[in-house]
């Protein structure tokens, strides 16, 4: 964490000490988890292994006062990994004070904010940095220092953000798996801004519901969360990738139409400042068949098209790709569910497949399984160096 981040942490800690001295009622919850990852193929690099154990903890401390109009949340996170010292990491996911006014809310401290509607990628979601070492699906986020004012008015909800301090993306270390190759040298980031990771970013988002339509329009000005990676061969024995964080302006639109059993979804962005400005979009649907098989299982059919205008050297893995998936929700006492999906590259026929399944055991345990495979990946694809990293992951989590 950078110094600015730390100072926010320190001040909020001071506030929390003051609060605790009023003898407030703290609610503690969270989880402990043990995880195993097994890889099917020999690694690209002999320092990598075919198996990995790790454990994580994420408690949440919460309290509220003034009849709930003020609240405080502290959610630290830590993982210890058997092999990858970059994956052994800690983070403060949340450490913030929230005040609720009649038609406004103010959140100050470290927090996580999600924007968007689609499943195959989260284009519009930009406030938080992705914690890539946690999961390559992009859904695990690092805590972001922020001051967020929400105005809840008749014309919609307007969220204004001041984001002091930047979080660099996490990447697996040399021994980590799955990882792109060569490894990313996180010690050598390049920033476009002279303020580097102390640059203050700004964002705003307007969102509103119009009957069956949920609409969000957003703009972000600041350091790109999504770095370009440049090859560094200054040490020919150990080539690496250097993350480059440009200053960008990104406008985003997210729309969902909810009608009967249909969800129609669209996310689109226009980003300027990272090479030529470009447009990227993802859109599609989720249709659910309710009460299948034994009468309680829901089966969702998902399809999304991904488009990215960037030239091949800088483009994301989603430049002209179709995602198809099935979601099974058993609606049983154990909340069993599964999502099976593949992303097909229409230009190269490469395929990334993903299975996620989970089930509650007893009252406090959840078992989950993930399976990820990368198939027929051509040399120019960003996934090429992941071609031998197909893996299965088992996780057992205890919730308290």
């Amino acid at each position: 964490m950078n110094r600015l981040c730390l100072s926010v942490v320190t001040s909020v800690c001071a506030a929390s000490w003051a609060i605790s001295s009023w003898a407030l009622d703290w609610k503690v919850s969270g989880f402990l988890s043990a995880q195993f990852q097994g890889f099917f193929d020999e690694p690209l690099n002999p320092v990598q292994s075919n198996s990995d154990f790790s454990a994580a903890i994420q408690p949440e401390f919460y309290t509220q006062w003034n009849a709930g109009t003020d609240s405080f949340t502290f959610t630290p996170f830590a993982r210890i990994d058997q092999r990858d010292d970059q994956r052994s990491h800690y983070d403060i996911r949340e450490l913030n004070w929230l005040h609720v006014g009649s038609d406004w809310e103010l959140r100050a401290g470290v927090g996580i904010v999600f924007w968007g509607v689609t499943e195959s990628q989260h284009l519009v979601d930009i406030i938080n940095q992705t914690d890539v070492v946690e999961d390559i699906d992009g859904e695990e986020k690092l805590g972001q220092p922020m001051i967020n004012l929400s105005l809840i008015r008749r014309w919609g909800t307007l969220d204004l953000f001041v984001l002091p301090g930047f979080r660099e993306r996490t990447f697996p270390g040399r021994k980590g798996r799955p990882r792109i190759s060569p490894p990313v040298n996180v010690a050598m980031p390049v920033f476009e801004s002279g303020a580097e990771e102390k640059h203050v970013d700004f964002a705003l988002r307007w969102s509103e519901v119009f009957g069956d339509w949920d609409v969000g329009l957003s703009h972000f000005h600041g350091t790109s969360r999504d770095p370009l990676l440049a090859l560094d061969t200054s040490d020919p024995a150990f080539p690496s990738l250097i993350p480059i964080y440009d200053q960008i302006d990104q406008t985003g639109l997210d729309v969902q139409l909810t009608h009967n059993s249909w969800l129609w979804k669209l996310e689109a962005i226009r980003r300027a400042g990272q090479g030529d400005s470009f447009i990227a979009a993802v859109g599609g649907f989720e249709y659910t068949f309710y009460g299948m098989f034994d009468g309680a299982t829901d089966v969702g059919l998902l399809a999304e098209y991904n488009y990215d205008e960037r030239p091949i050297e800088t483009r994301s893995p989603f430049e002209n790709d179709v995602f198809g998936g099935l979601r099974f929700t058993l609606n049983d006492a154990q909340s069993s569910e599964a999502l099976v999906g593949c992303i097909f590259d229409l230009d190269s026929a490469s395929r990334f497949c993903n299975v996620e399944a989970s089930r509650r055991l007893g009252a406090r345990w959840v078992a989950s399984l993930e399976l990820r495979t990368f198939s027929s990946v051509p040399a120019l694809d960003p996934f090429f160096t992941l071609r031998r990293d197909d893996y299965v992951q088992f996780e057992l989590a205890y919730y308290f």
Partner: protein
Amino acid sequence: MRKLVLMMALLSLLPLEGIAESAEEKGLAIAIEADRRDLGWQDSETSMKMILRNRQGETSERQIRSRTLEVTGDGDKSLIIFDHPADVKNTAFLSYTHAIRPDDQWLYLPALKRVKRIASANKSGPFMGSEFAYEDISSQEVKKFSYKWLRDEAIDGEEAFVVERVPQYEHSGYTKQHAWIDKEHYRVLRVDYFDRKGALLKTLTASDYHQYLEKYWRAHRMDMQNHLNGKNTTLLFSDYEFQNGLSERDFDRNSLKRIR
């Protein structure tokens, strides 16, 4: 005098239904009266313990809290907060119910901090894996059903109307319901649910009624028995509170994210 006798004679020739209430009118009148007696509570909060039992008698429990805002002229707004099992803690469900058109529903997923608009076509789907369907726990608006009074019948020593209700909204899992409504307080004591094939699917028994604000009756226990799969669910209500001054702001998408 002769004229009057003549008029009465003529009137007596009119079909009986022209004067007396039809079974449909009587059924509707009972529903309107039950609705009228439950007007004006403004907002309510309650805690619920849900006990799920499978055919083998194994149980699992859920603990939830719910807040409801009375909306006149439309369905109520409600917010449900999940406390237990621990893995779904802080998950919250926001619903703007409507009489005929589909409800608006959002789900908050705390792990991703994501608010997700969800389809409300799953009215017949199980709520939290229980034997209660979403449509069973949704606000009961008069317009949701057509009605027909079937008979009067005593249930557990209380005189009751038995009324047939046929859902008028789309995506219902039922062809009809038979509801036992007590004559003194117009409380629902029992409901038989008939599936799409017309077979008896489930029976709801509502008991342990308490009166609040000297007017509004609330059951503290509901038992839903599924006759087809042998499972049942018990809902135990506690800590009812009314008129806490909740407003629309307590039922918006922002409140969904921060509610505890």
